[in-house]
């Protein structure tokens, strides 16, 4: 019974490891964001994340011009999705309040 379980575990491990190795081989090459499926494309990744200048209208666009922050992730967390951060802060506040209530010092 135990040997059957070991065989199943080894086969499952091999399949999952194969998937992981294949996906690691298919991942984007590091430092070349313009390469999509092995072909060079025009758009740069910085244009989507940080922003650029629209060639037809001549106006700047993107997260950097909308929020003024360099870090696009921080501009999402504190500007576009500020309510999400408010909820996270509420979760932390509730956790601290619960722990303080549970481990409070009792006067005997």
């Amino acid at each position, binding site marked *: 019974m135990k040997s059957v379980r070991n065989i199943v575990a080894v086969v499952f491990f091999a399949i999952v490891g194969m998937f992981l190795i294949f996906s690691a081989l298919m991942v984007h090459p590091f430092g070349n964001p313009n390469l999509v499926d092995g072909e060079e494309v025009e758009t740069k990744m910085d244009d989507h994340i940080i922003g650029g200048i629209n060639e037809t209208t001549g106006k700047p666009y993107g997260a950097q011009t909308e929020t003024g922050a360099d870090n696009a992730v921080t501009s999402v967390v504190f500007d576009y999705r500020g309510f999400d951060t408010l909820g996270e802060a509420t979760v932390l506040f509730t*956790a601290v309040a619960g722990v303080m209530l549970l481990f409070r010092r009792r006067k005997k």
Partner: protein
Amino acid sequence: MNGMSRIVKTVSSFAFPFVLIYGFYIIAHGHLTPGGGFQGGAVVASGCAMILVAYGSIWTMERIKEKDLSIFESLGAIGFIGLAFFGLIFGGYFFKNYILEKGFFFNEMAIGASNINTAGVIPLMNFAVGLKVMAGLFAIVLVMAYASSKKEEDK
């Protein structure tokens, strides 16, 4: 929980200011580099927890009480929500970035790789959330360690 050996105390008190500086650096550069209030606050709270483990919870509780930490945490929460409400008052929207290109500090727009004086209300919110996270996480660890040490004394 009593303190550990003298070697651990010396090494942790040597590493403590560097951990603190790294955490505050992550908080202060949250709008420029990866990281932010949550991550930097977690780093600072981890440094304080290292001191707590090395010196013991009774030694630490004599120096900082959990009530002071909860005051700091409430200050961070009030600052965060207050900044959002000031956006409602001055800009017209909740979470509006109202001091961008208007105030005296943090008012510049980011163009390319920019300096620290940018991004409006985002660095201030980073500071508020960082204060909240560092005080909250350290309060949790401190209270739980102190309660377990009390239980050991009773036995």
